[in-house]
């Protein structure tokens, strides 16, 4: 884990409210594992103190990129920044996905919206290709479909309004695949919490292993402030664990969903 000043190489609108930001971060980029994140301090944003966590999308040499949606003052300030400007990065952070083995289960990736970005490195580095299920509200929410296809993965798209791919939820497409072909599959998922919970339930139903990348309000990203905790089962109940340190990727069976409410 390193703290470094990263120069922006490019910051471009991908579609609608989504941006793709490439940074030069030579200490961090070569060390990134699939599912890890960077904690970004947007230096021009003086009154909003905290860093913002972003899953790492792609890595190339000494650069890394993130895909983000403008949803608040942090991401809006980030969207206004351009090439040559600097950000402070902490990373790579967190415990990421387990890389599938060439003789292991067939990986099925399940992504909600820009959760797809967090799974690109997993697909790229997996010795075994599988299927990516991606869902969003509408066409604009389906990001990086061409990138996954270029890796040789099959991509199945669902949108809630039917403007792209099948109409419906990503979990419906997943179920349609699993009903005839569940054996020997492993699920990997990143997206909104209700989607992750549904994937966890499906994994349970078909008795499949599943790794879920969770999202919680984050403070320091270093395991210190204890803001980003989620309940994890223990031998005698559950305890809070940190999404920034023990996570963001957890085994679906370990999450004590009943304590989340």
């Amino acid at each position, binding site marked *: 884990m390193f703290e470094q000043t990263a120069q922006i190489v490019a910051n471009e609108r991908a579609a609608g409210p989504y941006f793709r930001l490439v940074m030069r971060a030579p200490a961090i980029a070569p060390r990134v594992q699939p599912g890890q994140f960077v904690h970004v*301090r947007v230096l021009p944003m003086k*009154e909003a103190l905290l860093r913002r966590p972003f899953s790492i999308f792609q890595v190339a040499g000494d650069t890394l990129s993130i895909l983000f949606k403008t949803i608040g003052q942090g991401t809006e300030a980030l969207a206004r920044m351009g090439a040559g400007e600097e950000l402070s990065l902490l990373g790579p952070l967190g415990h990421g996905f387990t890389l599938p083995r060439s003789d292991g289960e067939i990986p099925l990736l399940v992504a909600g919206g820009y959760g797809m970005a967090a799974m690109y490195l997993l697909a790229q580095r997996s010795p075994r290709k599988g299927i990516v299920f991606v869902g969003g509200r509408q066409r604009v929410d389906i990001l990086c479909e061409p990138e996954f296809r270029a890796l040789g993965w099959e991509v199945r798209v669902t949108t809630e309004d039917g403007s792209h791919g099948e109409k419906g939820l990503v979990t419906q497409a997943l179920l349609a695949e699993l009903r005839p072909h569940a054996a020997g599959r492993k699920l990997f998922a990143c997206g909104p919490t209700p989607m992750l919970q549904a994937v966890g339930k499906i994994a349970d139903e078909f008795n499949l292993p599943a790794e879920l990348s969770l999202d919680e309000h984050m*403070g320091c990203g*270093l395991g*210190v*402030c*204890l*803001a980003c905790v989620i309940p994890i089962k223990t031998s005698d109940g559950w*305890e809070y664990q940190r999404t920034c340190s023990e996570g963001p990727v957890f085994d679906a069976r370990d999450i004590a969903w009943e304590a989340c409410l």
Partner: protein
Amino acid sequence: MNLSVQIGNLTMPNPVTVASGTFGYGVEYARLLDLNQLGAVVVKGIRLNPVRGHPTPRTAEVTSGLLNAIGLQGPGVDGFIRKYWPFLKALKVPTIVNIWGTTVEEYAEVARRFDALGGIGALELNVSCPNLKEGGAQFGTDVKLLSQVVAACRQATKLPLITKLSPNVPNIAPYAKAAEAAGSDALSVTNSFPAMAIDIETRRPKLANVTGGLTGPCIKPIAVKLVWEAAKAVKIPIIGMGGIQNAADAIEFMMAGATAVAVGTANFYEPQTALNVIAGIREFMERHGISEARQLTGSLQIAK
């Protein structure tokens, strides 16, 4: 140039430490900075038994500040000794353990346990956490209870005792004096301020606990005033804290009367802050021909 300062019989190699709860148990920062350059490491609050803490969301960012209601999640005394003490005791700089309880007896018992452990630099008594129904702030906002807690811990240990005062009192002087009279070797001023924030779209509080403690740069001027008032009331040293982001902030606290300072919320977003503060104090002393850090303490001049 001499940067060292005395907190009771504890010598800090420089006046800059970290605020409890913002630095974990030190080990989390070991890969980012050299902990041995700090004046001391202050760990997150420990009570006798493990504590699960509050539900999420536990934090909310506000303008120039941070609201939190973590609920003092922690490993308890045994968990702390097993998981974190082997790392901390190998450091060259002192470890200050922040302790709390829900009864006077529990505070004293925790103090006894750490006294028996040996090697601890000092104990900081948290009598001011705003986020607990029992324990914490009730002891810090009642002069009589405060005196009882400090006196009971004083009986339980010879370790230096630092009482961390609540800002949530009409006048801090009687609390500062009560802690001093009951045997506290020093004061920490101040803990977080009770506060809240609301999401107007959902009409829900931004914290699951509804209210929390406010920290960060937005509280600094209030904290400086509290240090100034406490320093006028007592002879024991004060560790000043509240929104310190740089050496200038730290020097303000020292001029107001603090012997040492603690970097808090800034550790969350700029892990090098404490080390930058030390370098900046050194630079300030050089520039002003000051040879001893303690000469900064209480050097505020008010024109008559």
